[in-house]
């Protein structure tokens, strides 16, 4: 046997001992640093992101964006001489873990506000804890309407830094009907994702209102590898456009396999498409004749300062999650500038954000919905490059 029984026991006791030690160590730390938001010359904010698990690629990028925003303000001398300190927690891509992480940030680390998580379900999960403790949350990329609203009332402590799903579905349906003169459409939806389903629903409503017809609806599940069966069926529908509101990993494979099967129709998507991986997976040629809407266009002048700073810091191009994480950080920092480290005042300050310049443009917070008022862009894929097709200005 590899482990003798005695050795095995010894190992178990050692492991148990280590665990106990680390628990005590944890306790000591928390009573030491806990007083009220760290020591007097720093303000502690929480970063609660999906650093592991299924959505780690979104969460970890958003966390990097946030860190950059905080680093910039600290390098510039902080706020009234106080540095901002980020305490990171991992929501592990699970709703329950997101609540645990938020609870830890609030009660152990005494943060004055939280940024994150990236994914809708995890933000919704933590919103009760945050509200109970009167801690403001700025969610960078959670686009589901229910994030900030519950039973028709806006959740006082929850804000976001992005537009909402219905706006995306609506934009793409208008674009298909008006710009592309499409008459028929197929929906191909990730049935394991609320994001995908809600975009599909709104797209269908708007598209049919504009006189188009949705002739077929098919579904897949996140992490699927093979889409050929459903795509073979979709091909028979011969529709003008195929709307695939999904995340980039699946999108890349769907576009690739669709083109392999000889589907030449225009394919449309939303912000889940906004990642260089789509082109890497699908190939440049397959991506021609596809359009998607997203939060910003990297060629836009307003975005250059952020993009250059991000490249200098991390030596890679930011993706859309990094950009929104940065924006959320900027919003919170702006609020702390006027409110200091008083959580209640921070909430008010975020609500009153007006014409703030962030990484992707200029935003104003809508007090009724806690959604920022900001523009939306439609991007065309041309030989592996993004080109700006239309830019829809913010309403109201």
């Amino acid at each position, binding site marked *: *046997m*590899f*482990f003798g029984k005695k050795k*095995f026991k010894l190992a178990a006791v050692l492991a148990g001992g280590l665990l106990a030690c680390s628990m005590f160590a944890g306790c000591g730390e928390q009573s030491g640093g806990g007083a009220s938001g760290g020591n007097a010359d720093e303000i502690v904010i929480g970063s609660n992101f999906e650093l*592991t*698990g*299924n959505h*780690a*690629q979104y969460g*970890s990028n958003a966390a990097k964006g946030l860190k950059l925003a905080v680093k910039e303000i600290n390098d510039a001398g902080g706020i009234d001489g106080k540095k901002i300190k980020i305490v990171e927690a991992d929501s592990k891509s699970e709703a329950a873990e997101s609540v645990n992480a938020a609870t830890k940030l609030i009660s152990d680390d005494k943060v004055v506000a939280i940024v994150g998580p990236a994914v809708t379900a995890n933000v919704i999960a933590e919103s009760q804890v945050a509200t109970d403790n009167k801690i403001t949350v700025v969610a960078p990329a959670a686009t589901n309407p229910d994030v900030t609203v519950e039973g028709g009332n806006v959740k006082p402590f929850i804000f976001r830094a992005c537009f909402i799903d219905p706006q995306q579905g609506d934009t793409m349906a208008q674009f298909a009907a008006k710009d592309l003169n499409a008459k028929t459409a197929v929906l191909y939806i990730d*049935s394991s994702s609320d994001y995908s389903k809600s975009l599909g629903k709104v797209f269908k409503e708007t598209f049919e209102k504009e006189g188009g017809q949705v002739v077929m609806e*098919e*579904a*897949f*599940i996140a*992490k*699927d*590898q*093979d889409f*050929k*069966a*459903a795509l*073979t*069926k979709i091909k*028979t529908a011969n529709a003008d456009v195929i709307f695939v509101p999904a995340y980039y*990993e699946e999108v*890349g*494979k769907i576009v*690739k396999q669709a083109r*392999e*099967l*000889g589907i030449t129709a225009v394919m449309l998507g939303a912000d889940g498409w906004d990642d260089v*991986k789509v082109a*890497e*997976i699908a*190939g440049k040629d397959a991506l021609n004749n596809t359009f998607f809407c997203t939060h910003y266009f990297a060629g836009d002048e307003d975005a250059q300062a952020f993009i250059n700073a991000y490249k200098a810091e991390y030596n890679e191009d930011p993706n859309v999650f990094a950009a929104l994480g940065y924006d959320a950080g900027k919003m919170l920092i702006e609020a702390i500038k006027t409110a200091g480290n008083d959580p209640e005042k921070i909430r008010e300050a975020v609500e009153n954000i007006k014409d703030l310049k962030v990484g992707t443009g200029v935003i104003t917070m809508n007090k009724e919905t806690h959604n920022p008022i900001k523009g939306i862009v439609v991007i065309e894929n041309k030989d592996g490059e993004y080109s700006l097709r239309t830019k829809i200005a913010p309403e109201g």
Partner: protein
Amino acid sequence: MDFFHQLIQQLINGVSLGSIYALIALGYTMIYGIIKLINFAHGDIYMVGAYIGFFSITFWNMPVLPALLISMVVTGCLGMAVEKLAYKPLRHAPRISILITAIGVSFFLEYTMMYFVTPTPRTFPSMISFAYNIGGFVVNGQQIFIFTITLLLMAILTYIVQKTKLGKAMRATSFDTETAQLMGINSDKIISLTFCIGSVLAAAAGVLVGIYYNTIDPLMGIMPGLKAFVAAVLGGIGILPGAVAGGIILGVIEALVAGFISSTFRDAAAFAILILVLLIKPSGLFGKSTNEKV
């Protein structure tokens, strides 16, 4: 004609998807056959194999076949190490302990890999990519490649298990470990070798799938692992040709359900098959019902 055309294309889709399930199911079935362990970590061994293949191809600029071989060798060693460290100490423990350990190993592999390679999916460079368009039916070079390799490996394995001395020792160990030991068979070594072969197969599947779908990520093994398990049960767990037949049947059923009923029912159909097989013929399509002598 249109219906007929779609039917043929769906059969092609189904067989190619099914050969991937079959390739993973072969390893599952080998390991189950010898120690009656449903090795939940098998899907993750497959993932590790895909990553080793990926690094060989992209960082060391190897062609496909040497990369495939390296991945198979390294992953084979990993399989033996897992067996030695995680399962062997539990050889005489209740079946449930070893099953739970397998789930633990699965998480361990997933998150260790995630730590080292980051959760971002990696893109395989496209290698053997040529698509044939025969009378409107699309067949892809990689699909043919995977199908051929699956059949080839099944034939080699069946030969090893049925005709060689090693195979005889495997069958004896599987039948009754203790009696086999009394007859002079080193069953620890045989079990270890079986894990090695199972993992080598998983690595082959991992690299081929990486090339075919051209992305890999640390959690890529979970769903194919489950589907391969269904395939192995469908064909009769422990039986090599059964695993291949089960995989291909499963792939074809999925394609037909997605194509002619609805893609939302696809996975439901796969798991409904598992339940039906367990109800009607628990030993699987190719399985013989054996009466256990007490």
